[in-house]
């Protein structure tokens, strides 16, 4: 169903190709062209697009951890905070160049994630959810109070990202930086999901006991999943810090961690397309509500002032609930169905 009628694979390389036919390659080319030309035609939206890009990187990590490996983490915003602060501190206080700080942020967030992932070896489900919430609170508490290093409640100013002489200060230049790193992350995640490690993750997700009996080391793969998932979070945090130019602990609330889970659910867990769709879906609702709220406030003068602040969470919660009940496989599955019916049209099978 994935290939157009009449296309057959004659070699292993063809079988494994992500982009198989000429049409695929042409569509990919068009997509990349459109993405790289975006600052030319969509300049006003770049700040939203940049936020979407950073969130996609973070949620791609959560998808590896939760969607592929089945380890629920409700502390992802905390791990992003670890990455953001690591990178900011390295650049501000030690003068480390940004690309090195980016990698270090990922590595440190990964190690912290692994530490809080250790309980996953003995517990799962609800217990793991709570211990990752605990991780989130402990991380944020440390950031808020370790004033000498993190600047405490007032946060810290961060230099703009720079590679050598290039400084990413304008929205458009930041857009290219984020776009390239997002593409690399998505490509990495896609390939990871079909290697030995990715298949081991899926086996652990589907039944970890059975996986262990088959010879998959739970210790190794669960912690690897935590490391990779939080590595992505760290990279996203570093990008966030160096593009928003100031960070404080308020940027990383628990509600964001829950929202990330919501994004992979709405998009479709355990797919590569899913998180991208989920992030775009949620962020667009967010933008829409922000744009509409003054109008809504005027339209309903009887409701208490400030009521619009509750609309976005209400819609997010509703979306999560409705997707779990009616379309647990998310938007990615809908897209698959659409593609299949498009290929077969006008026949039903």
């Amino acid at each position: 169903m994935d290939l157009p009628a009449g296309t057959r694979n004659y070699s292993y390389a063809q079988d494994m190709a992500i982009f198989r036919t000429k049409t695929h390659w042409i569509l990919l080319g068009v997509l990349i062209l459109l993405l790289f030309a975006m600052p030319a035609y969509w300049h006003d939206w770049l700040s939203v697009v940049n936020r979407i890009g950073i969130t996609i990187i973070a949620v791609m990590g959560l998808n590896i951890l939760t969607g592929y490996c089945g380890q629920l983490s409700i502390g992802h915003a905390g791990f992003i905070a670890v990455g953001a602060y690591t990178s900011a501190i390295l650049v501000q206080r030690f003068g480390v160049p940004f690309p090195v700080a980016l990698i270090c942020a990922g590595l440190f967030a990964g190690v912290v994630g692994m530490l809080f992932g250790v309980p996953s070896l003995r517990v799962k489900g609800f217990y793991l959810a709570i211990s990752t919430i605990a991780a989130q609170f402990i991380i944020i508490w440390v950031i808020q109070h370790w004033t000498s290093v993190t600047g405490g409640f007032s946060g810290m100013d961060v230099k703009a990202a720079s590679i050598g002489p290039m400084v990413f200060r304008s929205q458009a230049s930041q857009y290219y930086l984020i776009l390239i790193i997002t593409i690399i992350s998505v490509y990495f995640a896609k390939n990871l999901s079909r290697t030995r490690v990715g298949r081991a993750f899926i086996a652990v997700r589907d039944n970890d006991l059975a996986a262990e009996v088959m010879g998959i080391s739970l210790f190794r793969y669960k912690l690897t999943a935590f490391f990779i998932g939080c590595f992505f979070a760290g990279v996203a945090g570093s990008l966030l810090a160096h593009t928003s130019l100031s960070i404080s602990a308020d940027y990383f609330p628990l509600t964001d961690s829950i929202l990330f889970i919501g994004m992979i659910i709405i998009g479709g867990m355990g797919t590569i397309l899913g998180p991208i769709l989920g992030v775009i879906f949620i962020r667009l609702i967010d933008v829409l509500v922000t744009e509409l709220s003054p109008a809504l406030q005027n339209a309903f003068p009887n409701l208490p002032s400030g009521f619009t602040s509750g609309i976005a969470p209400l819609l997010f919660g509703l979306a999560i609930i409705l997707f779990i009940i009616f379309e647990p496989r998310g938007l990615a599955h809908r897209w698959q169905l659409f593609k299949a019916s498009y290929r077969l049209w006008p026949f039903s099978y």
Partner: protein
Amino acid sequence: MTELLQFIITGLALGIVYALIALGFVVVWKSSGVANLALGQLVLISAWFTYSMLAQAQLPVWLGLPLVIIFALFLGWVIERIILRPLIAQPILSLITVTLGLGYFLQGLVGIIWPMSLAAMPPLFPKTPVRIGTAVVSQEYLWAAIISLVLFGLLTLYFRYNRMGIAMRAAADDQKAVQACGIPVTRIFSRSWMFACVLAAVGGVLISSIGNITVGLTHTGLQAFSVVILGGLDSLPGAIIAGPIIGLSETIGAGYLTPLTWPGIREVIPFIIIIIVMFARPYGLFGEERIERI
């Protein structure tokens, strides 16, 4: 010494209220296997509802509080019927995340209906502080502890003598056997959610009459989670014993650790306890260790 006595009394009283809220979690978990992560938001919405009844609609207490209970029963029934019923026998990941979505939804609802960030609960208990030994404690703490203990007693009696209570205990033990006996399991699920909401509502009223009504009430739900983790997810006595332990460690820890570490340690103590329990004894003090089979 006076200080310590004060910490112990307030800690115990708070802990008992946490235990009460945690009990709602345990009842749902035992009967239907759903981990209710929206506990804090249930506490929040019922506290605000109480505020609406007593302060905004100016109802007398004898009419307002029963209305709160009815609201909580209704809320529990609706949640179970609309959200959880279609998800029976779904994977645990869906059951956890759907309650996260529910929590988000409820928080949004609170934001729409009660957008103010802070309100004081109308006084339900006499204001004069009482002296216990050398400590001076405000009466809300004592009343909170007494009401919670009475509710514990009522619940114990219900589970021991009421037909439905016995059926609920049986369902926690073996759902299939219960269904084979002709007991409607869905009604048990519904009942357990109604219990959870009522306990959360009572807890919310008690906690917010000690402090204020803020978004911070959702934190109470998290404290209740640390209670169930420490006590063991499927153990009612565990929750009742772990509650005061969490409450005590919070007040005593906040009192004596703050000079040694950073301020705000009080809020993270439950989470540090969670992490320690996870490493040392993941199934809690009284929880049953699950032996899994493939």
